């Protein structure tokens, strides 16, 4: 399937799963369903997953697109270091969080979606991906040149050596060194 970064899809899936988990939980609690304790857990787990998954990771290749206002979330998530960077940890965490959802109908969908997200994260981890924060690049302040009389760093562009070589009989009058040696017959 091409060089996919699985984590990107896992991220979308887990964000959706978090929302579904939380919504199912709200229905379960508001409707005072039997087993509403699992629903309450679902709300907490769903919200937690959403907060964790909201900041997108920096991509291995290509341009990363941030979600609106994700910077503060990035900083929080980044603060946990390897716990949040490592996708094995995330896969395991999602798998653990989704299990209580399976005990109640309202949260069962959230459970399955989070479980699938966990599997995709596992795939990402196996492929060696990890989470990188998208941080604004601090550019070095542009230095105003002390003197505009600095000499140029590179030589002027020239045609390639094969075209530059002078014929053997014109070597003496040449203005520059011949880049390759020539004999009379060339």
């Amino acid at each position, binding site marked *: 399937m091409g060089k996919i970064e699985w984590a990107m899809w896992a991220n979308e899936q887990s964000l*959706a799963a978090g929302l579904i988990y939380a*919504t199912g939980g709200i229905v379960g609690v508001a409707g005072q369903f039997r087993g509403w304790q699992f629903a309450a857990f679902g709300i907490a787990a769903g919200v937690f997953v959403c907060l964790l998954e909201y900041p997108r990771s920096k991509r291995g290749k290509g341009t990363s697109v941030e979600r609106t206002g994700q910077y503060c979330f990035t900083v929080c998530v980044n603060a946990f270091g390897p716990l949040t960077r490592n996708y094995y940890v995330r896969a395991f965490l999602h798998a653990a969080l989704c299990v209580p959802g399976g005990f109640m109908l309202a949260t069962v969908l959230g459970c399955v979606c989070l479980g699938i997200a966990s599997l995709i994260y596992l795939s990402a981890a196996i492929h060696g991906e990890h989470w990188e924060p998208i941080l604004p690049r601090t550019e070095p302040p542009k230095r105003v040149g002390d003197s505009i009389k600095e000499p140029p760093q590179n030589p002027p562009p020239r045609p390639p050596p094969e075209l530059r070589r002078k014929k053997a009989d014109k070597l003496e009058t040449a203005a520059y060194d011949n880049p390759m040696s020539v004999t009379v017959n060339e």
Partner: protein
Amino acid sequence: MGNWIINHGLSAFILVVWMGINIFLFVYYYLFYDQGPQFEYTRELLGSALPWARAPAAVLNFNCMLILLPVCRNLLSLLRGSFICCGRTMRKQLDKNLTFHKLVAYMIALMTAVHTVAHLLNAEWYTNSFQGQYGPLAGNLSMLDDSSELKTTYLNPVRSNSTTPTLLVFTTIAGLTGVVITLALILMITSSMEVIRRSYYEVFWYTHHLFIIFFAGLVFHGAGRIVRSQQVTDPPHNTSFCEDQPENWGKKPECPIPQFAGGFPQTWMWVIGPMIIYLCERLLRFIRYMQPVSYRKIVIRPSKVLELQLVKPGFKMAVGQYVFLNCPAISQLEWHPFTMTSAPEEDFFSVHIRSVGDWTEDLIKMVENLPEGGQGPKMAVDGPFGTASEDVFDYEVSMLVGAGIGVTPFASILKSIWYKFKDSDPKLRTKRVNHAMVHFDKDTDIITGLKQKTSYGRPNWDKEFEQVRQENPSSVVGTFLCGPQALAKDLEKKCVKYSDVDPRKTKFYFNKENF
């Protein structure tokens, strides 16, 4: 404002009509289930969660019917061809098919959410009713069983004390198919997010085929007939009199035991048509795939652009249209769209392909390793698609702006103008064409081989517009853009700035997006 109406009026109208139908269906079916007398006893068990589940179901039926149609591109081409009489604005709506597809998908997602939540409540309340938590009437209704000796039919799908909502869902056809297709829908949506689509199209495309599971489950979703309504008995059951004395049912003449039956599944009636049409569409793509396509010429241009000149028997095109190419050697299932750069007057059609992602890179690599004059890899062609860009020919003066690979439709147009001019086509009104190609790499070839007025680099638009205005007083100039959105905004402003209502002065009309 007038410009907005011309550009967007018909789209807005179609959206209003679509939304209107959605709202009508929702309200009609809500009231049908909320007030219909045959559901009086069902509502006793479920309250308003019944209509809240059935109303989005109706909207879902409508939208699941619609969603397959915008992606039947051959059907759209057929419609486009038969709308020749009806004006270009109508036909241009067909170019916005993917936008409509996404809109309908969002509506399906929203209605699925409402429907699912309502059914979560239903499952819970059915269970509670059976366990007698809602009073004697609900309890008695729930106790009715399917029994031929007692001559009763059940109302509550929960039939035993050990049934939990979860068990109810997973042991009924409706529940099981519902969970499966909702899951398929969620996976389809998460993999269709723009980020995923732009970077890893394959994930999106292959996951999207879960729609097969979605539609299969959808058709069977109602087969269990779990929504039950009261049937007319002989003698009739007087609900208002009998509901207060369920213990007397079957004992009093006004209160025979109420009978119930499940509703006939209707979803298949909505979706069977589009499913067949879509099947035909995929069949047609397969037939096109089998048709032989030969290479007339293969040229590798600078800046990693590949030009392919292809010949396919029976192929007819118009300017500005595009085709889908499939190269089985690279990928069996992927079709990629490319605008055609040749003119219809030529006996072949050509595409210019830029190296952007996996597929295009692989194709260019494959072609680079070909022997001199050899045939390229087997290629299948589907199309042509898209509204023809005939607007360009309606203006006396046309200004065509193409950015990067966006010059491709213009190549087709310019070549066609040249041919029409050569053959003295009387329908050609265009007297003068100014073409600006914005290239970031000045070494790129002229695609068309025309000498007239193709300028390179990033133009100073004020100067260009001023010059065109001076050279063409009292003319209507059509400005056409194929390029990025930022450029579109810029050009639109310039068109407004340099246009004048005075008939002795120049007027610029801006055509953006796919013209």
